[in-house]
């Protein structure tokens, strides 16, 4: 077995390499800061492995393009940021509804609107959950290191394929542009998941028929299986329906299919939580400041721990609730005006007090700010 060399690379590059390692061979995108490096790397690397890079005419086109490609059986990725992610929302909802596997990397920049293209932020947490209209399933993963950008992009591709859903990889600008030493895994050590292909003959294929797995089998366009894909409510044949009972059956399945796999989907990190009196809930680059704060406070004899949701959506609710039952207070530092705070507060409200530490001015939250907040809460 060869041991891979240590390299110094950017979060955006780790994302691109993770996608390729996971089997992505199709990328469509549009230039936008701070995610452009992902497109640039894909334009260089994908042709080398027989993959396809397309620079589209806009963000809506980029999102729709990868859905078309995914239907032919490709593993697909797009990357964008801020206004670009807003423009993609309709097609992301379409992917949720029609259950088309795809991965969207969002390198978060400071909004709203054009905001700060080169400024860091975590302001798209609620957009990731509810950006497109209507109830829909979604997965969002949030790396805090460059290595994790690689690992979670691999996971995102696998989740998209396995659960037939759009998956966000939510970076923030710091994580996207930060360079760190990484040793990436060997190809043979990377788990790769493929979507479930039809077990029936073309004539018997019902594209949205499911068993107890709740995940329908997916035939590649162009292989003899003829089926219709629509953003309208549909029955198991794939054709539109307005019958309330069938609409409800579809919606119930869509809204519960990820629940069934939450043990696999929900990822989080706990640090020094065993005897913690105060719990910090932080994610992305803010979790790095939080970890530093935990170490410094522990040196000072203050019992504080970190809960870092890696899967942001669906949120690891039970894990947090368990920890919240044993602490005096929970602090949520985030680079927005309190988006994940709302979720944390909802989960913790009968157990302890939740406080927020919010900053959305293009500067990261520092360990000292978190330490001051912990002292205030204690």
């Amino acid at each position, binding site marked *: 077995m060869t041991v891979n060399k240590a390299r110094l690379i950017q979060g955006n590059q780790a994302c691109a390499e993770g996608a390729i390692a996971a089997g992505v061979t199709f990328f469509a995108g*549009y*230039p*936008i*800061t701070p995610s*452009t490096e992902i*497109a*640039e790397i894909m*334009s*260089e690397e994908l*042709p*080398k492995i027989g993959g396809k*890079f397309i*620079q589209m*005419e*806009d*963000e809506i086109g980029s999102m729709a393009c990868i859905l078309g490609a995914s239907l032919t059986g490709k593993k697909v990725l797009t990357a964008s940021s801020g*206004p670009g992610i807003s*423009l993609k929302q309709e097609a992301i909802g379409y992917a949720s509804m029609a259950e088309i596997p795809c991965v969207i990397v969002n390198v978060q920049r400071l909004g709203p*609107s*054009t905001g700060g293209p080169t400024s860091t932020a975590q302001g798209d947490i609620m957009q990731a959950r509810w950006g497109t209209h209507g109830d829909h399933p979604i997965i969002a993963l949030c790396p805090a290191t460059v290595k994790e950008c690689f690992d979670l992009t691999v996971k995102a591709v696998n989740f998209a394929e396995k659960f037939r859903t759009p998956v966000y990889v939510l970076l923030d600008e710091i994580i996207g542009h930060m360079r760190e030493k990484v040793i990436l895994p060997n190809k043979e050590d990377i788990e790769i998941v493929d979507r479930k292909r039809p077990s029936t003959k073309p004539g018997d294929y019902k594209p949205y028929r499911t068993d107890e797995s709740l995940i329908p089998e997916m035939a590649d366009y162009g292989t003899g299986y003829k089926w219709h894909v629509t953003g309208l409510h549909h029955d198991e044949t794939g054709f539109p329906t307005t019958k309330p009972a069938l609409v409800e059956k579809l919606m119930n399945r869509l809204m519960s299919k990820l629940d069934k796999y939450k043990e696999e989907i929900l990822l989080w990190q706990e640090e020094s939580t065993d005897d913690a009196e105060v719990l910090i809930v932080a994610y992305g680059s803010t979790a790095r400041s939080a970890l530093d704060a935990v170490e410094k406070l522990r040196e000072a004899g203050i019992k504080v721990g970190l809960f870092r949701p890696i899967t942001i959506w669906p949120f690891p609710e039970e894990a947090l609730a368990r920890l919240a039952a044993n602490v005096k207070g929970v602090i949520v530092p985030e680079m927005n005006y309190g988006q994940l705070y709302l979720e944390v507060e909802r989960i913790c409200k009968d157990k302890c007090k939740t406080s927020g530490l919010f900053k959305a001015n293009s500067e990261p939250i520092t360990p000292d700010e978190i330490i001051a907040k912990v002292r205030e809460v204690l």
Partner: protein
Amino acid sequence: MAVNIRNLPDQELFYGHKACPGCGGAIVARLALKVLGERTCVVLPASCISSVTTIYPQMSFFVNSLTSSFPASAAVLSGMAAACKAQGLEDVTVMGLAGDGGTIDIGLQALSGAVERGDNFLYICYDNEAYMNTGIQRSGLTPYGAWTTTTPTNNNAVGETKFKKNLFEIMMAHRIPYCATASVAYPNDLLNKIAKAKEIKGPKVLHVQAPCPTGWGHGSEKTVEIGKLAVQTGLWYLAEYENGKVTLNYKPKEFKPVKEYFTKQRRFCHLTEEDFRVIEEHRDNEWKILENFLRKDE
């Protein structure tokens, strides 16, 4: 009255910008406002020109300016133009100034709609042939053979494999009152086209080639030289469409070899004789199409 450099006003309505030295886009902005004057409202999408002109307190536009969302410039112009009309503001020019990507890619739908409605605005596309503001990615107006960060040239790849979309013909197909191509290297031609457009009611679109030293890889003192070579080699033409008629404003007696244009820019340094042949063939075809339009009008 014909405009020329001598009778331009001394008043500067565009200065103090942070564009790269030799920026063609900045020349377009300055010259346009010389002709259009103070009663102008400017709409810019995300672009180089908005990034380098709106850094407080060094605001470079001495008229009202608005940085719109990327796809929306022409739609914003529509709203402004319609509202100006409703208020009887007849002496106001509503001008869009957008780059090539903001016009031909993400902005094309809005531009098509605004032109179709016949709103009274002037839209200028300064074409530096790639998304320069985000660091040189290809656009629908990047020429064949150009290196950009998303059209790499490693492993003998040619770079951009598509030819430029023809905005002039796209606008002609909308039967617009006035549209034209121009170049920053031919300022008299450009100024007169802007002056003409100012007097015409309805939508007017100018497509202006604007060399970019940073993205094209040439010296900042070469902007005009490169712009002239583009026209003299026939790779860019100066034409206008008015009242359904196409006019050619400048015809080189014979084309200079395209090689002269390409070898002066780093973005083309990988091109081979075979590439030049492909490009010349395409150029000749484009001229045939243009000459057909000219003949029809005779």
